[in-house]
C-alpha cells in the first residue's frame, strides 16, 4: 500500500516537472510547477518532516509562485516561443549533456547509497519520543543555537533583496531621474 502511494507520488512529481519543461504557455508551466511543489511537500510528509512540508506549501507553492504568476500576468507575454536556427542544434547537445549528467548521478547513487539499513529514521523517531518535543521545537532550538549565524545572515540577505527589488522596479528616465507617476500615463 505504501509502495503504491509512493510510486504514484513519484510518477506525479516527474509528470508535473515535465509539464514545467514542455508547456509552451508560461502560465500552464507555472501551475505545473505549483503541483510539482505540492507533490514534493507530500513526499516530505511521508518522511515525517511536517514543518518543512507545510513551509514548502506556504512559502514555495504559495508565496513564491504567486509572485511568479503575478509577474507573468504583469508582463503579458503573448508571443509564442520560436526557436532561432542557431539554437536548434544546441538543444540536442544540451539534452545529451543533461542526460549524461543524470546517468552519472544515478550510477553514483546506485553504487554509493545504502538503503537497506535505515538507522537514521529509527534514531529520529527515538530522539523525538524521548525528548517529547515536536519537530518545530527541535528545529527552532537548533536554529537559534547551532545555526544562529546563518539565520542572522539570512535576515540581512532578505533586507538587501527587499531594498534591491524596490530599487530595480523604480521608474527612471534617460538621465536617471525619478519619474513622477502623476505626470504620465500608466502603460505597463
Amino acid at each position, binding site marked *: 500500500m505504501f509502495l503504491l502511494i509512493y510510486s504514484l507520488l513519484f510518477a506525479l512529481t*516527474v509528470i508535473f516537472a515535465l509539464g514545467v519543461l514542455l508547456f509552451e504557455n508560461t502560465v500552464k508551466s507555472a501551475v505545473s510547477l505549483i503541483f510539482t511543489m505540492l507533490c*514534493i511537500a507530500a513526499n516530505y510528509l511521508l*518522511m515525517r518532516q511536517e514543518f518543512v512540508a507545510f513551509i514548502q506549501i506556504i512559502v514555495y507553492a504559495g508565496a513564491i509562485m504567486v509572485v511568479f504568476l503575478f509577474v507573468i500576468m504583469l508582463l503579458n507575454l503573448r*508571443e509564442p516561443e520560436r526557436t532561432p536556427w542557431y539554437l536548434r542544434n544546441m538543444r540536442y547537445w544540451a539534452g545529451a549533456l*543533461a542526460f549524461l549528467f543524470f546517468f552519472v548521478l544515478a550510477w553514483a547513487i546506485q553504487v554509493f547509497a545504502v538503503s537497506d539499513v*535505515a538507522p537514521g529514521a529509527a534514531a529520529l523517531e527515538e530522539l523525538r519520543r524521548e525528548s517529547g518535543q515536536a519537530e518545530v521545537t527541535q528545529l527552532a532550538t537548533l536554529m537559534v543555537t547551532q545555526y544562529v549565524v546563518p539565520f542572522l545572515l539570512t535576515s540581512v540577505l532578505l533586507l538587501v533583496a527587499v531594498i534591491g527589488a524596490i530599487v530595480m522596479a523604480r521608474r527612471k528616465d534617460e538621465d536617471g531621474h525619478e519619474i513622477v507617476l502623476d505626470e504620465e500615463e500608466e502603460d505597463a
Partner: protein
Amino acid sequence: MEPVFEANLILSTLLFTIGILGVMWKRNAISLFMSVELMLNAANLAFVSFAFQLGLLSGGILVLFIMAVAAAEAGVGLAIFIALFRVRRHIRVDEQDLLHG
C-alpha cells in the same frame, strides 16, 4: 514502512536534470527562473532525504535557508525582468547583449 531512500535520490536527480534542461532550452527569462526553482526543489528533496536517512535534523534547517534564498532570488530577479521588459518589450535571454539593458 519507510520511503525508499534511493528512489528519493533518483527522483531528486530527475527533477534536477529537468531543471537543467529547462535552463538550457528555454529562452523566456521567467521559464528559466521556474526551472531554477525546480532545481532548488530537487536539492531540498535530497537534503530532506539524507536528513531522514541519517537521523539528523539539520536537513530541515538547510531547506529553510534555501527557501529564504529562493524567495530573495525570485523577488530581485523578477524585479530585474520587469525593469528589462520596460526597456526592451521582451525578456528573451539570448537577445540581451548589453549590460546596461
